[in-house]
């Protein structure tokens, strides 16, 4: 395989999906009225259960989940439109984000009928929030080395081990975790399975990790002789690695990989006024020029996902470039702002900028590091 323009066939968002946009815009305008940019800049890191439930009441969680399971039965394009609007405005979507983006599609694809009937309607109505248990203290980029283990016992599975960097585990109801069910770390991708873990079960301890900004979105999660019921297994025992990989195209192809600094960019652009100096106009234009083909790629991948394809290499290429510009926007706006020693410096702009300057260096870590992604692209180019 090689990578060329055919991997991103030109695609247009169909009218039925575009039709959703004005309703979403109106909803956001109402819900986010008065919320300042430095709060909105949190976007998909911002957790607000009330906001998520308001979305659920509109039928906007689980947009692609079939109606019989409580979803809206719409396609990937409709979800693209919804998500693009939410992220561009900086809506606090974290509470339902993982469940909507990954867990629901995963359960739909690999879950049993009973799991689907039980969980999907509650994800869609904003009752259940999900987190993902992947990383462990000794398993970061080398995910296949996970050591958390589930052993078959009478009546289910006994889970022991530890996950880390689990975003919003302390506010979630369920974790979907990748754990070892047979063999050892030396067996690598073999012997891994995915489990649905009810976080209220005995033996589970969630401990927050505070980062330098004072935020506590991340957690360590400890499992000590946690008895999971039989039906906690998701999909097939031993098939966890393939199942996790199938999620990656969903996780890496969306607008969240290009819009994380958009609230800052648009605040700065607004403050430039109608007649920016050539240097600032040029900075703004370069951001736009880099974002434009990336949005095209994201729409193209949405079309592929809608057809049931899994553009995993394409998504890696897109995410690597997308997070680069998300990181670069605060860098160059900081450069522009502090070039003027005597200001004027808008206080809200400074606060929004400072928030992103303290986080932009980690944008390339979440969802697969730069080096891992580039390795995947190299494989796509036939080099591995």
């Amino acid at each position, binding site marked *: 395989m090689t990578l060329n323009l055919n991997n991103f066939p030109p695609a247009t968002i169909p009218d039925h999906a575009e039709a959703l946009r004005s309703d979403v815009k109106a909803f956001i305008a109402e819900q986010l009225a008065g919320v300042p940019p430095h709060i909105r800049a949190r976007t998909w890191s911002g957790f607000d259960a009330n906001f998520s439930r308001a979305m659920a009441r509109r039928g906007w969680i689980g947009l692609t989940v079939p109606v019989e399971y409580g979803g809206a039965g719409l396609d990937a394009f409709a979800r693209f439109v919804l998500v693009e609007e939410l992220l561009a405005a900086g809506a606090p979507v974290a509470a339902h984000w993982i469940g909507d983006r990954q867990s629901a599609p995963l359960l739909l694809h690999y879950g049993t009928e009973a799991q689907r009937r039980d969980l999907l309607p509650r994800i869609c109505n904003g009752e259940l929030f999900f987190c993902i248990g992947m990383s462990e203290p000794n398993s970061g980029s080398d995910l296949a080395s996970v050591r958390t283990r589930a052993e078959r016992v009478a009546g289910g599975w006994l889970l022991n081990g530890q996950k880390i960097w689990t975003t919003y585990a302390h506010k979630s109801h369920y974790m979907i975790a990748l754990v070892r069910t047979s063999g050892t770390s030396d067996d690598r991708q073999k012997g891994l399975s995915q489990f649905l873990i009810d976080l209220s079960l005995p033996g589970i301890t969630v401990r927050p990790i505070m980062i330098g900004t004072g935020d506590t979105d991340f957690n360590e999660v400890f499992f000590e002789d946690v008895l999971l019921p039989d039906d906690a297994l998701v999909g097939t025992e031993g098939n966890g690695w393939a199942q996790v990989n199938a999620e990656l195209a969903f996780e890496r192809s969306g607008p969240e990989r290009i819009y994380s600094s958009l609230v800052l960019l648009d605040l700065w652009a607004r403050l430039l006024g109608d007649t920016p100096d050539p240097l600032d106009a040029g900075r703004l234009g370069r951001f736009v020029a880099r974002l434009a083909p990336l949005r*095209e790629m994201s729409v193209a991948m949405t079309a592929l996902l809608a057809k049931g394809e899994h553009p995993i290499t394409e998504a890696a290429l897109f995410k690597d470039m997308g997070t680069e510009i998300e990181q670069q926007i605060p860098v160059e706006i900081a450069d522009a702002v502090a070039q003027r020693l005597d200001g004027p410096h808008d206080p809200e702009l400074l606060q929004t900028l400072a928030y992103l300057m303290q986080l932009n260096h980690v944008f390339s870590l979440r969802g697969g590091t730069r080096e891992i992604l580039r390795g995947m692209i190299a494989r796509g180019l036939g080099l591995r």
Partner: protein
Amino acid sequence: MSDDTDTALLVEGFRRQLAALVTPAVIREIEDGASPQSLWASLDETGFVDAMLPESLDGAGLDLAQAFPLVLAAGEHAVPLPFAETMVARAMLAQHNVLVPAGAAIVLAGRSALIPCAGVAGHALLDRDGQLVLVACSAAGSDLFRTRSATGIHVGETLATPAASDDGVLLASAAVAAALMAGAMTRVMEMTLSHASDRQQFGRPLGKFQAIQQQLAVLAEQVLSAQVAARTAFAGRGFDATRVAAAKCRANEAATSVCNIAHAIHGAIGATAEFDLQLYTRRIKQWQLAFGSESYWAERLGRARIAARADTTADFLRLHLATGSA
């Protein structure tokens, strides 16, 4: 011509003819000063130079999007004559019922530090005093990249002044340059991937080293995004300033990393006259200097973003820079 399969077949036929006609040896002969006449006659004979003319004028009636792969292919083959430029110029003139002299090679001469192919063309399309103008011309000044370009042109007889044009020729020039760059970068990527598999150091192919793999991944990213940006500039009925600005800005930015990485992986041999890589990278560098740099187009794009008064940049991208908005 509307059927996708027909267009794909047409493009395939064109690529085969280019591969036969425009060999590296032919490119070198023309760079060394040989007459372009015989290659131009062969290219003209393929009929593709009229591909964008309506079928009533014996063209294939291709729209911009359908013609885009032909321009990309011309870039991939480093066609040393203004094939893509002439194809687009003929289409622009035909819209105003101007038929150009048979066999004329036309350069798109938007405002620029240099005009690619000016040394091998007898005609130019210009924006002059608010008018679209077809003139007879000859090269003036230097051929900075040994590509038969020129830093200027002597303008001769005015042959047609069919329509008003503020910067229509500049937009067409930059759009075609962005697509030719994307094509040439595609070839540079293929050559670099193949060199990385063939060349052995420390007992294994270069492409097996992680450090090289990571660079090749970046190369692919840059090429793909320049291709997508150029395709968007060819999405509408005509060349739109905002989409052209994004395409040329992105192509110019990508070109720097693409050439750096490709030459780094080839080593010194890639820059030698006898090796083909430099045929493509020299042209890419020439186009970087032609029809506006990344800063020129970025400034225009930034001003367009502000003038549009979009609520968010996402709105601006969707309404002005998406394939679907064309």
